């Protein structure tokens, strides 16, 4: 990376952090520090998106498009519907009860035990996830760029802790707005650049035809086969439950819309997210597909893993030879498209598919050996594709900006996590169990210390992870194992008025136990996304059963 790139990188990140700290320097109110306040719908919408878009989104998603095509976008189809449920049920209740923590609502409906249980499950899964959110992008970034891992991890980690401590939730909002601006600008630039570079070989439409011929343009799959990972049905049903749990009950997201100037602003912020999320994921995946076509025309490295291959390695030459044949087949296909000759088009299409299969066979077999030789056994090669493209194809200055995009995304999701962990620790535990009546300065200081503490835990945890595992999947698995039970707890609170505190408390513990045992004994026989649905359903069933056998320990309450 050139000096100019480093200047762009540090200027972009420095300006965002400076602006966040500067704008919230006089932050003295408890509301602003723990919840944020007076936020407009645009800030809320961007902050919600920034929290969800972790660095790995910008590394993995284009890679996903590159390797598997567009089908992954279906996972997001349930999200807009979940947003409507969040707007109609969750937001009005949170605002009416004037909560700082999502789990305060559980105390209002049931009792303190349920609140502690919800908060504890949140701290457990987010606390584990925070370290991985920092670690996963840092390891890929440092391997590809040849930087020092410890320096990147400490630098990004301390910067996040610094501005989150300084301005609390308000600073997280302010920085999110600018981080998302940089992220959007960077991604739009790369998209335009790929289309421009592709134009030398094939038009935009021809490029999509090539991608389609090689199976990358299956965006919607109406198959009812339950064994298929991504279909419109898993997206609408599984995606709905996942998004409802995440946006409705996860404090790192709830905190984003609690700071709305009014309920209306919070709702519009979520609708903004509902309208933009699917197109945004579509564009990021399409970018990956276009990078795939780019590497049909231009020689990719024999592997995208950051390894030094020996000169004149015969297997590398074999992969390069297969790539050249694939390029010729692609040229024939484009010529047939231009000639509008249906027969030639069908023939050249088959030839292209065959050439691509030959190339993939040789390349994948080579990658398996590379993985074993260089210790990348559990890493996904596709995670390295986009960063390699950025490093080798972008003009000077823009490489720095795109690295800033990735680091910004890592910082924005980590800031939300630390901010939420600190709020829950302060409001649900510290204030309830230790210091019940103190002034606001005391609680702000406590919240700052908790932010620093959780940030320290995240950094130390990240230092000790010595693994090439697919870590982001680990985050999703941890989330899915806990989200279902927490969603069940909330849905019982909202819709099952005859169920009381003791029954739901025992029901949630029983459901969580069954989910954890079933996951550890199941050996992956149930897709982890289903645990969101299973955990939620089990809480409703167990709580109802417990209530039938327990005496009514408290009067029924409605929220």
């Amino acid at each position, binding site marked *: 990376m050139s000096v100019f790139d480093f200047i762009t990188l540090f200027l972009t990140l420095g300006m965002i952090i400076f602006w966040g700290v500067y704008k919230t320097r006089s932050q003295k109110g408890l509301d602003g520090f723990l919840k944020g306040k007076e936020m407009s719908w645009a800030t809320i919408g961007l902050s919600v998106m920034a929290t969800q878009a972790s660095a790995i989104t910008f590394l993995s998603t284009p890679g996903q498009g590159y390797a598997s095509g567009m089908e992954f976008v279906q996972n997001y189809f349930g999200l807009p519907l979940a947003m409507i449920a969040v707007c109609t049920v969750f937001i009005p209740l949170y605002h009416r009860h004037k909560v700082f923590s999502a789990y305060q609502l559980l105390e209002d409906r049931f009792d303190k035990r349920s609140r502690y249980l919800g908060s504890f499950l949140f701290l457990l899964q987010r606390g584990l996830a925070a370290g991985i959110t920092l670690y996963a992008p840092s390891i890929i970034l440092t391997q590809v760029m040849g930087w020092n891992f410890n320096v990147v991890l400490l630098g990004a980690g301390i910067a996040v802790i610094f501005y989150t401590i300084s301005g609390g939730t308000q600073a997280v909002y302010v920085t999110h707005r600018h981080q998302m601006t940089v992220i959007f600008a960077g991604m739009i630039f790369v998209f335009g650049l790929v289309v421009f570079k592709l134009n030398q070989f094939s038009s935009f439409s021809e490029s*999509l035809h090539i991608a389609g011929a090689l199976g990358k343009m299956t965006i919607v799959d109406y198959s009812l086969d339950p064994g298929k990972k991504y279909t*419109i049905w898993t997206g609408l049903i599984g995606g709905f439950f996942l998004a409802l749990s995440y946006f409705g009950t996860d404090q790192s997201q709830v905190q984003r819309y609690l700071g709305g100037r009014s*309920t209306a602003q919070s709702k519009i912020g979520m609708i903004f997210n509902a309208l933009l999320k699917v197109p945004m994921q579509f564009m990021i995946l399409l970018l990956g597909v276009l990078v795939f076509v780019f590497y049909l025309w231009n020689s990719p490295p024999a592997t995208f893993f950051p390894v030094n291959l020996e000169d004149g390695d015969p297997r590398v030459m074999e992969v390069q030879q297969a790539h050249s044949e694939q390029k010729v087949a692609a040229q024939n296909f484009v010529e047939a498209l231009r000639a509008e000759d249906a027969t030639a088009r069908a023939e050249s299409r088959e030839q292209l598919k065959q050439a691509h299969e030959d190339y993939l066979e040789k390349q994948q077999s080579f990658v398996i050996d590379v993985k074993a030789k260089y210790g990348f056994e559990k890493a996904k090669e596709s995670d390295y594709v986009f960063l390699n493209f950025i490093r080798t194809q972008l003009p000077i200055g823009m490489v720095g900006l795109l690295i800033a995009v990735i680091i910004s995304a890592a910082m924005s999701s980590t800031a939300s996590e630390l901010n939420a962990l600190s709020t829950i620790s302060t409001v649900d535990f510290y204030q309830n169990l230790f210091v019940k009546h103190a002034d606001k300065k005391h609680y702000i200081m406590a919240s700052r210390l908790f932010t620093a503490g959780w940030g320290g835990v995240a950094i130390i945890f990240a230092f000790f992870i010595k693994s090439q595992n697919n870590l982001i999947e680990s985050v999703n698995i941890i989330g899915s194992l806990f989200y279902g039970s927490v969603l069940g707890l909330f849905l019982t609170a909202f819709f099952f008025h005859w169920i009381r505190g003791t029954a739901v408390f025992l029901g949630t513990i029983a459901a969580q136990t069954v989910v954890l045992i079933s996951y550890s004994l199941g050996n992956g026989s149930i897709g982890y996304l289903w645990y969101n649905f299973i955990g939620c359903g089990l809480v409703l069933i167990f709580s109802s059963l417990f209530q039938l056998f327990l005496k009514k320990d408290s009067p029924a309450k409605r929220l």
Partner: protein
Amino acid sequence: MTEPEEHEELDDRVHDDIPEGKDRPWGVLYTLVVVALVLQILVFTWFTLHFK
């Protein structure tokens, strides 16, 4: 002398009342979200068939 907000405590939840915006046409916005989703799925289906 202590300023009034010094006594702001977490469990008192003494924030200002937040307007709920009940007067707004939320049904129209929710319908817009559903229509946008259906349109996106239709466009994506067209893409899938066209670039097969």
